[in-house]
């Protein structure tokens, strides 16, 4: 990914430039004993365009949530840059950033933990507005109640405490909290993973409606490719801190370029009986390797049916094989992956 194509020039600064531009992002954590280093994210570059839904999928430990935290400004890059609306995060002063970060919000996986148990829903809704200034209490209250209504909750919910609400209601409150801030980018980190399956659809629809009404861009992080595919315009596939593939949802789902994406898709339950499926089943052997000691060369080579000698030694370049469709794989061609000689058991 050190290839120069990985780092297109910044297109920011203009009104329709990307909301967020990430270049060569690496995040490293020191292990607790101080001897090792964990590369949670390794040399990743991408843009989030205005008003789009940018899906990020991957297994746990793939670094997808870490990328989300960087996009919400909760974590600073160890290496590389993040530009928000054309401004380098590193150039903001503390004070400026506290003002600017309102536009880049986050909805968390656990809707209960994101609400202070000792604050009423109304207080939680008022909290973000207090830092905006320029509003008196009555006005803030009205906006809070409007936001509550907008996400489909009754006004009298405002008086309750978080533990008196269901998971879905709490997630609605978390969404309502950020609406008065007029965010441009909302990082949605596994926002439906903790919810009942029956409620997931409603919450996803709410996200879609709000995007339509307010022109929000989403960084939609999930481990479930079906959910990401349903809501995203583009999808990035992460594995051990690196991007494996990035492209428009249709392209990635229908004509995947990377073996890992193929494996993820084939792990999805399919509505057709086996003899009618056009895809062969591809099972991955073993677990995701430890990010403390990632494999050499291509990080996926230990589990990849296509892997050859070159994959063990050389990290594949990040190539744009089709228009707006990138991958990092030695064997991928614009027509996809070559047929497997062995290992497929359709």
């Amino acid at each position, binding site marked *: 990914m050190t290839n120069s194509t990985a780092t297109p020039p910044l297109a920011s600064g203009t009104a329709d430039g990307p909301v967020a531009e990430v270049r060569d992002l690496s995040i490293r954590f020191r292990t607790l004993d101080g001897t090792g280093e964990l590369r949670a994210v390794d040399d990743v570059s991408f843009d989030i365009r205005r008003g789009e839904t940018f899906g990020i999928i991957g297994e746990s430990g793939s670094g997808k949530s870490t990328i989300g935290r960087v996009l919400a400004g*909760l974590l600073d890059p160890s290496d590389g840059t993040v530009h928000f609306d054309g401004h380098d995060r590193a150039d903001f002063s503390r004070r400026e950033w506290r003002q600017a*970060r309102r536009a880049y919000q*986050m909805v968390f996986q656990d809707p209960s933990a994101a609400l*202070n148990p000792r604050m009423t829903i*109304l207080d939680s809704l008022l909290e*973000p507005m207090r*830092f905006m200034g320029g509003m008196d209490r009555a006005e803030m209250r009205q906006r809070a109640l409007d936001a509550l209504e907008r996400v489909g909750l*009754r*006004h009298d919910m405002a008086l309750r405490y978080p533990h008196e609400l269901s998971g879905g209601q709490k997630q609605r409150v978390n969404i309502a909290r950020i609406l008065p801030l007029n965010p441009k980018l909302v990082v949605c980190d596994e926002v439906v993973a903790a919810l009942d399956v029956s409620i997931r659809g*409603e919450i996803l629809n709410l996200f879609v409606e709000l995007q339509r009404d307010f022109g929000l861009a989403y960084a939609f992080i999930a481990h479930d490719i079906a959910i990401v595919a349903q809501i995203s315009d583009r999808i990035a596939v992460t594995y051990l801190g690196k991007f494996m593939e990035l492209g428009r949802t249709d392209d990635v789902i229908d004509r995947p370029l990377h073996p890992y994406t193929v494996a993820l898709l084939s792990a999805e339950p399919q509505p057709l009986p086996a003899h009618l499926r056009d895809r062969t089943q591809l099972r991955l052997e073993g677990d995701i390797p430890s990010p403390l000691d990632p494999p050499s060369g291509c990080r996926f080579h230990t589990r990849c049916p296509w892997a050859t000698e070159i994959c063990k030694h050389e990290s594949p370049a990040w190539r744009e094989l089709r228009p707006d469709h990138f991958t990092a794989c030695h064997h991928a061609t614009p027509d996809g992956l070559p047929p497997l000689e062995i290992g497929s058991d359709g």
Partner: protein
Amino acid sequence: MNDTAPSQSQPTGVIAPRIDRPGFFTRLLHWLIDDPIAAIGLAVLIVIFSCAIFADQIAPYDPTLQDYAAMLEPPSSAHLLGTDDLGRDVFSRLIHGATASVYAAVLAVGVATALGVPVGLIAGYTGGWVDEVISRILDTFLSFPAIVLAIAVTGVLGIGLTNAMLSVGIVFAPQLARLVRARALVLKQELYVEASQCFGASSGWILLRHILPNAIQPVLVQITLLMAVALLAEASLSFLGLGMQPPDPSWGSMIARAYIYAQISPAQMYAPGIAILVTALAFNTVGESLREALDPTSRH
């Protein structure tokens, strides 16, 4: 709970329900009705505080007036709780002693809270070398036996009830600081703190609105326990002659004095002893109940 948008139940044109919380006194009343034992504890504390404030009006005698004709007398209609070894009215001394004891306990615990809570919050929330330095200092304080440390601090500050209780407060402070630090360490990782950071909250806001309210529960219990311990510490220090100076009464100095005559007149110790016991119990009861009442998740 119904999770879908319940817009049917709120047709337009109907006045939205009032979005107000019940007032302080309504909530206080509900709390006391829900927990009668706490109500008794609170009543006891009110009586004791009233005695402390209106001691001059309530006490039938001057607490320092000596009557050598009536020494170590048992309770009678003239002296409700009898007299001590110098013929002073025990009841009057008990009432006036409340002033000293309540003042002592509140002062000590107030100092401990004012020092310990902010130090603990800063150590836990800031972390890093700040936490290291503060924690080592706290460990040093905690490694001394409390009463020895209090005596040493009193030695520096000078003898007298106020100085004695200031030192007790300083000795108590590390306990609270450690407690608050531990809570702050956990709470700063909470998701709602991160959410608040995303909104642009300052560290001060996060400490006051998120960390402190969620850290305060165990602190309240500890404070009420310390109130009881402070009463006893006052007794110990006055017993050693470092606290309340004769002839002025405090419950501790009364016990100290009665102790000398324990074999002749053991009843002398009962009045101040029971007063300390009841007050300490009342503080504990109210504190425990307050802890529950302040936790919204324990309400129904």
